[in-house]
């Protein structure tokens, strides 16, 4: 059984992909914080989220005052590192939940990746982008693909998301 928690920038890109429901083959439940839910508005995205909440694949994550307090502290800490991208409250909430509950954090926010890489108490948090999720789907053969590169390309085309060249080449090579 595995849980994840998703932030807004991940969900709005991911929900545009034709294979979006494969996410639920990797995670039993993906939590969506209320702060994230407030940031979506288009019919397609809202319908997908509502349908997935109804089926139990997604679940609402209500932030408690102590989680919000730690998230606010995390926001401040990342702003203290010169020139490094800070995190904002929505992704900070995801990182705090990831640290406290062991959830995988799903994000496309570089600040969240940096925080999990640079701040010692968040180093154990698993942070995945769409790149890592697609890699895992391909590795487990949950996507039948003759060409892994074509699957990544399909995601880029349908979501307008660009993977960093080096990371993409590395993922394809490992497959």
């Amino acid at each position, binding site marked *: 059984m595995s849980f994840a928690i998703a932030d807004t920038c991940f969900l*709005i890109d991911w929900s545009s992909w034709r294979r979006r429901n494969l996410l639920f083959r990797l995670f039993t439940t993906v939590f969506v914080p209320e702060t994230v839910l407030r940031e979506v508005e288009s019919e397609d995205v809202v319908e997908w989220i509502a349908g997935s909440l109804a089926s139990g694949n997604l679940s609402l994550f209500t932030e408690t005052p102590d989680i919000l307090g730690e998230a606010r502290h995390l926001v401040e800490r990342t702003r203290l590192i010169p020139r490094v991208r800070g995190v904002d409250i929505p992704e900070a909430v995801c990182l705090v939940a990831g640290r406290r509950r062991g959830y995988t954090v799903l994000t496309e926010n570089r600040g969240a990746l940096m925080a999990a*890489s640079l701040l010692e108490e968040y180093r154990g948090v698993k942070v995945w982008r769409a790149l890592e999720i697609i890699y895992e789907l391909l590795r487990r053969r949950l996507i039948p693909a003759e060409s892994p590169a074509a699957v990544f390309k399909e995601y880029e085309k349908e979501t307008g998301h660009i993977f960093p060249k080096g990371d993409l080449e590395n993922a394809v090579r490992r497959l």
Partner: protein
Amino acid sequence: MTDIRGWLRLEEEARKIRRSEADWKFIEEQPARVKAALKYYVETGDLYVASRIAGLTVEGFNNLRKRAKIPNVI
């Protein structure tokens, strides 16, 4: 694990891609708030803060980002 220098290099690479692929004519034609938000996004890649500057939801701003042809590089 990537160190601070590695992250800064990745940030600079992403910034260059956003600058070069953005539709600057579209950006310049937008109302002041939206224009400032799009320019902020090109420089930082920070969707949440950009959406607050524009006065939009994150998804609303993300749709605008796509119309401005600014790639989300991460």
